[in-house]
């Protein structure tokens, strides 16, 4: 039987509310496939709950939807402060031997490289996306954000289909390229080049660190 997937879903600003919605889509896919999901969101998205979920439930795959730095990934915002879930040289060993996809800025630059024995998929620069502010309270209706966020969801969907980490990332990159081509065919649509630029940059800083052949199974 497949081990569970742990998904962190913070939601306290525009960026995290979009990630929350898009992570929900793959969460439903997982449930449809009979994969057990540990969904960490407010009020359970705390360092304590996160740590105990990893230690007690032993998820093989951890999917972060959060803000990040070169050496940290965050959870919820408590008061004015974002709580750190993973910090290099403090508790990054929690991710050792795991399959990790960090949909967060910067985390592959250093934190991902510190994790041993597993596979860390992440971004070595900021993971950016455009949103249409007319739809910012309804991410499901925002067709601008879709161009950049759907390719990132494909990494997780592909891992659910027993693709290796490398195959999943390749599929995501191919989708980004196809999105760029589709955008180029749209005429008289302002903002097309801006979306292509962001897709390009996200593609360029997407990294797989560790065992590229690792699968979620």
């Amino acid at each position: 039987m497949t081990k569970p997937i742990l998904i962190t879903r913070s939601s306290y600003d525009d960026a995290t509310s979009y990630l929350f919605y898009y992570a929900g889509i793959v969460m439903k896919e997982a449930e449809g496939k009979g994969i057990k999901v540990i969904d960490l969101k407010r009020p359970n998205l705390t360092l304590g709950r996160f740590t105990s979920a990893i230690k007690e439930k032993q998820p093989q795959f951890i999917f972060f939807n959060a803000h990040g730095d070169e050496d940290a990934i965050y959870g919820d915002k408590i008061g004015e402060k974002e709580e750190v879930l993973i910090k290099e040289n403090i508790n990054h060993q929690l991710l050792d031997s795991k399959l990790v996809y960090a949909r967060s800025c910067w985390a592959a630059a250093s934190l991902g490289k510190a994790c041993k024995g597993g596979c860390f998929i992440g971004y070595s620069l900021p993971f950016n996306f455009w949103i249409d502010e007319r739809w910012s309270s309804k991410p499901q209706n925002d067709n601008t954000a879709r161009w950049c966020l759907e390719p990132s969801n494909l990494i997780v969907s592909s891992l659910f289909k027993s693709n290796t980490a490398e195959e999943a990332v390749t599929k995501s990159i191919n989708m980004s390229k196809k999105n760029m081509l589709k955008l180029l065919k749209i005429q008289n649509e302002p903002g097309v080049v801006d979306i292509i630029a962001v897709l390009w940059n996200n593609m360029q800083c997407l990294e797989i660190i560790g065992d590229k052949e690792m699968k979620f199974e």
Partner: protein
Amino acid sequence: MKEEKKKLDPEIKKLVLWRLDTVPKHFKLSIGREGTFDKEELKEHVEKEDKIGLQIVEMQLKFIKAVSSGELSKVLAEA
């Protein structure tokens, strides 16, 4: 001795500001923990040459270089 902040090349700055001018008014760019910014805010950060502004410049320059070197076209032709 305090290191002097490196100034952006004025021509590069002008180029990036011009690029940002074409961003639709209703678009906002999410830049992680830094926040979400519309085009006027993006331009302000570039004008100030602050951390966010320099990130925007770096991103725009990488893309412009990929277009002008033919790298983007090559990647898309092989898609």
